[in-house]
């Protein structure tokens, strides 16, 4: 069953901070989720291959040609970021 430690672990892996209260609330919900999906254990899947995708394999590969039309101007590349400098994305005084 899912524990507080499990929640901390997945929160760490998915880069989400959680307060103690968040963890408590999440625990409840995730335990519920686990219970709900437990029914899958009843399905007989002996010899069944996983279904990774419902579409057929790719019809064609992309030809190795530069697509100038799709390349963005640098202004467009940087338009949505909070900090930029000399055409780079910028992070302030990162300590790691």
């Amino acid at each position, binding site marked *: 069953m*899912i524990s507080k430690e*499990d*929640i901390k*672990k*997945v*929160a760490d*892996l*998915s*880069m*989400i*901070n*959680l307060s103690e209260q968040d963890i408590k609330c*999440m625990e409840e*919900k*995730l335990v*519920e*989720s686990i219970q*709900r*999906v*437990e*029914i*899958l*254990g*009843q*399905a007989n*899947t002996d010899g*069944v*291959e*996983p*279904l*990774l*995708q*419902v*579409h*057929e394999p*790719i*019809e064609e590969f*992309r030809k190795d040609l530069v697509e100038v039309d*799709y390349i*963005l101007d640098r202004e*467009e*590349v940087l*338009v*949505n*970021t*909070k*900090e930029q400098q000399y055409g780079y*994305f910028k*992070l302030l*005084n*990162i*300590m*790691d």
Partner: protein
Amino acid sequence: MDITNISAYEMHEKFLNEEVTAVELVNAHLENMEKLKELNAFITINKEEALERAKILDEKLASGAEMGVLAGIPISLKDNISTKGIRTTCGSKMLENYIPPFNATVVELIEAEDGIILGKTNLDEFAIGSSTESSYFGATKNPVDNNLIAGGSSGGSTVAVKSRQMPLSLGTDTGGSVRQPASYCNVVGIKPTYGAISRFGVVSMANTMDQVGVVGRNVRDTSLLLKTLMKKDTRDGTSYKKSEEVLKNLDVNKNYDFKGIKVGVLKTIGDYKLDEIVARDFEKAVEMVKSLGGQVEEISMDSLKYAPACYHVLSTAEVSSNLARFDGLRYGYRSEKYETTEELFRNSRQEALGKEVKRRILFGTYVLLNENKKEYYEKALKVRRLIADEYSEMLSKYDVLMTPTTPTIPFELGTNSDNTEIQYNSDIFTVGVNLAGICAISVPFDKEEAAPVGIQFIANKFEEDKLIKAGLAFEGGNVDEL
């Protein structure tokens, strides 16, 4: 005459016949949007650009140029479909100010056919949810009854269409997110085959199941937009050429019935905790299909009971992957509080993602842990095959399958959005379609009924023509005679 009261087809015709200008069409809808603001169907209204475009279309028509099949028709898009220069928020604080530098392919297709993009509709945050209550921009209300939820996650789109703020709208459907709100709002919603419409520029939720869907007030309108969008796109590797053939020769002006059509209906429909009214209406609907010549037979699908669990595992796993890119660095919300990159990621995600989204990410991460992957994720992939195979088997025997779209009618706003059991159950008839990658349509049982009930028809891959015919036939029947 209220020009918003007619079908999209008629709007287009009247525009071509110069009975109404594109500018008038846009203004009439803008007026409704203003009046019905409290429904909160829209996150962004594209007023200036739409009017500008309408003007250009009016001039184009006057010049005698050939017009596209959507000419003059205002169309709205769920706000997880990228629009160049128009913010695309996904209903999240994370993307509150994000302005895509590119258009989704569906946007290009609509514009190429002279459609007018007039607004971006509300949704559950990142399309995760089924009530349109988890949007950072507030809940959307149901125009049938303002106290009810609109359904979701494409609630903004179905509300806009129902309340005549827009004749046509695009949504996305990952587990029922077009069909369920269509059912709740008494409009038509189609989820096409996986790969039938380009997903390029459509923000992924669970990318092996996501599909753009179309919402309209009638089947004919809906098929018009659907046909325009069913095109192979070289920018989406999962888009297929055969999509273009499906509706090519379909005549939507003919009268259809169910003669010679084999319809499969679940024998055990009683097991799914249907609301009384849903059970009653569905029974009537089956009677009507029979009366229209349909060969209805009872079927059973053993794997269906696993569908919600299977969907929950796979969709959350994919959500945890697809939402990993929102880290506050290149675009989107960035926390002010950080001293390390890890803090930047953690704080930005904590501050800008909603509760339900975080929950799904955490659960999706959990099922993918080394120690859990086999038990949950891989098991679900195998069950997915069982479900897909069973649908495939049924659809080799029947032209269409018929179910209620949802087991219940919409609940009251604010009452159940946190109740995962109800949310979970409400997906039972829709999620299997996405797991199998096939197509389905939801048609209102009775458009005028106060308690909205939708009837779902399901068809095999790239058989949208069967859905349209079934939808047209069903729509043509008279429920009052039953």
